[in-house]
């Protein structure tokens, strides 16, 4: 069984440490939810794992099946089997979905001729309207359509581990169900390991977590089974974060943090 192993991960943005040492192991086919309040470092974690420019890792390691990925550029991490479903999928004018996914598949020596059919099939499963598939990547898509598009790409690319960065934000109930169900199916269909980063528990109604971690102020403060998410639903984050942190989230220093949160 494969694993994504995060050990003692510390990272900073413009000289300010956001992640103060994260330890996490996700096995293939498992779903781990990382839940935390605004400013806890959730998005930083997802960006650092994918190698987004602008962050400095100061300590720790991240291995995929024992291979260190922190030194790799983003595309090599993706080729090694990591996928990031972004909180704010970027519009890329003039680049078609087919071209993007064909390049992605052929770059790892896979058959790119299946792209068109695979996109059509997955789009139907996820409920992404066919007319949207001919648009340039994410251009003029609504928030919900972009998230379906991320999920559709995940299903076509079949990565080994997927980081879902607030997949549930900006999604209506139907889209949320379609996307989370598709990811849940992927955990058995191709043994996908999932790191679902979210603020709310609603993502976890269809996507059943094996482990729930609470991230607060750049640290995993507690981990447990699915019941931890239920507990959160009842009590909120108050018991894990000080009032100070809620009043002044440390994420203020994070230029990539959700500006609308």
């Amino acid at each position: 069984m494969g694993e994504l192993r995060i050990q003692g991960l510390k990272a900073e943005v413009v000289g300010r440490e956001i992640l103060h040492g994260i330890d996490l192991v996700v096995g293939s086919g498992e779903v781990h939810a990382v839940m935390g309040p605004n400013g806890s470092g959730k998005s930083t974690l997802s960006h650092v794992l994918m190698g987004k420019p602008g962050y400095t890792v100061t300590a720790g390691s991240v291995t995929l099946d024992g291979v260190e990925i922190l030194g790799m550029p983003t595309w090599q991490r993706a080729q090694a089997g990591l996928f990031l479903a972004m909180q704010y999928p970027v519009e890329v004018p003039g680049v078609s979905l087919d071209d993007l996914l064909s390049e992605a598949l052929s770059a790892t020596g896979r058959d790119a001729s299946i792209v068109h059919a695979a996109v059509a099939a997955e789009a139907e499963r996820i409920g992404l309207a066919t007319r949207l598939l001919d648009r340039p990547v994410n251009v003029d898509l609504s928030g919900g359509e972009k998230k379906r598009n991320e999920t559709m790409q995940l299903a076509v690319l079949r990565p080994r581990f997927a980081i879902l960065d607030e997949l549930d934000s900006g999604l209506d109930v139907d889209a949320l169900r379609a996307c989370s169900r598709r990811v849940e199916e992927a955990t058995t269909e191709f043994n996908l390991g999932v790191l679902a980063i979210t603020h709310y528990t609603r993502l976890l109604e269809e996507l059943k977590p094996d482990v729930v971690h609470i991230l607060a102020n750049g640290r995993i403060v507690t981990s447990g089974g699915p019941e931890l998410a239920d507990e959160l639903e009842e009590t909120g984050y108050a018991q894990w974060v000080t009032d100070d942190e809620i009043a002044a989230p440390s994420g203020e220093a994070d230029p990539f943090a959700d500006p609308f949160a």
Partner: protein
Amino acid sequence: MTSPDAPTASPTWLDDRRQAVSRRIGDPVLPSTEEEVWRYSRIGELDLADWSTVAEPAERGLPAGIEAILAAVPERAATVVVRNGFIVHSEVELTWSERGLYVGALVSGPEAETALGSVSGDGIDVFSQLNDVNSADPILISVPRGLTVDAPVVLIDWIDIEGCAVYPRLVIRVGANADVKVLDWHGSADVSAFVAPVVELDLAHAARLGYGSVQMRGPRIWQVASQVSHVMADATLTSSHVALGGDYARARTDCRLIGKGATGNLQAIYFGENEQTLDFRTFQKHDAPKTTSNLLFKGAVDDHSRSVYTGLIKVEKVATGTNAFQTNRNLKLSEHAWAESVPNLEIETNDVKCSHASTVGPVDLEQLFYLESRGVPTDVAERLVVAGFFQEVLEAFPVPGVVGLVNDAIEQRLDRRSER
């Protein structure tokens, strides 16, 4: 089909006109970069004595290298090939000539004497005047009122004499409620030459013209081009320009919206490499109420290449209810490349919607990260983003058949880029 075997004899009125302009400009004085419209240009490097005008057509056959262009637009209403300033091939499909479409030598066309200079007047600058004097075989496309020509008219302007100076002239007159699409392809062999084309676009009431020009001259060509248009009431001009070739290639666009409700859509893409300079000057002139102009120029500069964009929106007092937009976006692909972008507004009335935007910057890092996060290597991701940058304009190109050729040329540039 007609392929003239001798140059069309020029009528007296044309000789007179040439001589009159020649007397007026005397020994031509070239502009300098002191003039705003020539600022940042390489006009100081130009010496007209380095080139000689072509008195006689050296070759009357079709130049090699145009087959792919013709093949890309197999259905054509008319085809004209001009070589070193002389018509070497001219044909109009019978079905269109019967309905009054004229495409060919201006001197043999309808209202020839008034057509020439009907838009450019006394000439926008000295190069336009030199064109008046020296243009060997002016071309006229004349579409009678009410005619919708549903296959494109294709012109190929080809240069293949070393050291020549050529002054191509094209006049397009679109009658009331008529509709036509024109491809104007500027190509060349790898020769050193000076070319100063003038294009006049004359749109009558409610006429529609889609004018697509592709400048793919060789790397040693100097080109100073001028396009002037008059757009009458409710008429729509869509002009789309692709600029890839030349050592120094300048394209000045003067769009004058004269009639109420006239529209001018002006688009261009350009991609410089090596030491190229690509130079664009635009004027959106609103002379009537409820006129609309929409300008989008997008370019990339690589290596040591340079681009210049300066644009002016001028809205006259009478032009109430006007919409005028101007956008210039530049990708700077190398640290030695340089892009200048200077937008300007001159507005004499309050009742307008106007905007201008101009950017110069590297490839968008968020876009790159997104593509790379799917497993696409950095160099491939960058290629996709750069090629994608041009598609917004190419998708609306009036003669879509040649977009494949343009994309091929862009891809070749990107190939050379990754080899360096």
